[in-house]
């Protein structure tokens, strides 16, 4: 009982420390369009969960023994590869779904992705390369969510539930940005609540995959790499499917909000569900 109370207190302290700078900077520098007016604030936001973990561990005197800072178990290479390949492949499948079901007129051949082979290859190569160079930003978040919060929640509940709760807390951490239209825009009927719900669903699915990577390797680095490459490919690669070669957007059957939901989410959710099942199976076999 004492141990559970201690864990709850540690979780609460971490959440307060991670949320505080995000909410202060998020509202103070908001451009009311889902982004920030300060580039410095925008570029440092992803580092705050890691800073929160460091402060929490120092205050609670937990130390860093279980912080998953090693490079992982033997033969972890395939999981590092998966961490890069999954976010690069995801927009390709999402692009196919987009053009099969959502684009009203025009074919995938007209998209910027298929029009210029050289540019497409450049984007496919430079995205993971930039991801590696910018990996500290992914690490900043993953050290907090997957390296601290999920393991702490697992002390209180089963792994799948811990993944869901982590996903929700992680999604709501983006609150000040979502409230003004971050990621999903403002052009939908139930703004901004739809954006919050969509972000929660996306974060739960991603949380499952990132937790799977972390648990398989006993390290936060694959999740960090995957996180930052995912952020970049969604912005770069998927946009190339959504645009024509001349830079104008395709005509869709639904609003832009639903374009993102219907094209990206199916793959994410399937992947997240598979990861939760794999993690449950592993726990049962243990």
């Amino acid at each position, binding site marked *: 009982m004492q141990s559970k109370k201690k864990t709850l207190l540690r979780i609460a302290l971490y959440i307060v420390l991670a949320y505080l700078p995000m909410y202060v900077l998020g509202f103070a520098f908001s451009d009311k369009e889902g982004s920030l007016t300060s580039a410095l604030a925008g570029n*440092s936001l992803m580092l705050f969960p890691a800073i929160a973990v460091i402060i929490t561990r120092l205050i609670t005197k937990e130390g860093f023994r279980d912080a998953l800072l*090693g490079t992982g178990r033997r033969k972890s290479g395939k999981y590092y590869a998966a961490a890069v390949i999954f976010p690069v492949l995801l927009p390709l499948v999402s692009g196919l779904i987009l053009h099969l079901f959502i684009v009203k007129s025009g074919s995938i051949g007209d998209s910027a992705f298929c029009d210029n082979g050289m540019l497409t290859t450049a984007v496919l190569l*430079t995205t993971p390369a930039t991801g590696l160079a910018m990996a500290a930003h992914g690490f900043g978040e993953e050290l907090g969510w997957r390296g601290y919060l999920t393991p702490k929640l697992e002390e209180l509940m089963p792994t799948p539930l811990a993944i869901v709760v982590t996903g929700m807390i992680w999604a709501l951490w983006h609150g000040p940005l979502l409230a003004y239209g971050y990621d999903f825009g403002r052009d939908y009927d139930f703004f901004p609540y739809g954006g919050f719900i969509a972000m929660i669903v996306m974060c739960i699915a991603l949380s499952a995959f990132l937790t799977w990577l972390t648990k398989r390797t006993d390290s936060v680095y694959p999740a960090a790499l995957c996180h930052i490459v995912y952020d970049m490919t969604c912005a770069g690669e998927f946009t190339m499917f959504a645009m024509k070669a001349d830079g104008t957007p395709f005509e869709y059957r639904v609003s832009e909000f639903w374009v993102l939901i219907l094209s990206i989410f199916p793959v994410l959710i399937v992947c997240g569900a598979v990861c939760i099942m794999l993690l449950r199976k592993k726990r049962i076999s243990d």
Partner: protein
Amino acid sequence: MAGFLYRELRLSWYKIILFMFGMMIYPVLIALLMRNSPDMKDISGGVSALVSGVGAVMAFLIGGTFEVTMFKDDERRKWTYYTASTPDGIKRQIGAKYIVTLFFAIATVTMLTLVNSFAYDGNHDIAIATSLYMVLFYVQLFMRSLEYPLIVRFGGKMGNVVKMVPIAAVVLGGAVYLLFGDLSPFADMSSFWDRLFEALEDSETAGKIALGTGIAALGITVLYYLSYRLSVKWYLKGVDHYAK
């Protein structure tokens, strides 16, 4: 691996902090200058990226000194034989150094990005130079990929001499080109940068550069791994060159 990583950080923490401060002096000064000064009206767009690039090159050069020093610090025969006697000791010892180098380079890019953002907040005319930092990050890894196996194989002093051979060859090649090559692109230096930035604005040229960067980045990542494997292979061969 975690143990060796911990050892590296435990032994070098003060150097890491000092070098982090040292290498950020130039970029921070440049950022302060570009952020506020009314005299900086002409420094915008591509020119500002170049100015930021100078600070970034300095940061990577100073950071590179730390990375090489970290390797040379362990040039002791007793330590080498002890490491080799532990299970997978050589792989872990060398791996930890390659990983610390990678982390240090990543940290450099992050800090440069933050400093650049700080400058941008004060002056929206200057460019966000993240792509440039990414290029420098891979140049850094490329240099270390060539340097580390030589340091491992020949020891710090001799390794540096061996490293100078290809550098001297490149300098010599450059000198020969300057003497006999086509210098027409550099004929009018006053408009050289304008022409360069104009060329970069052309989407096809930008695409070609992006493709080249992507291929180079992929190649350097593979080279970095191969360099690690080579260093592991050569580790015990370099012992004879150690002074202690």
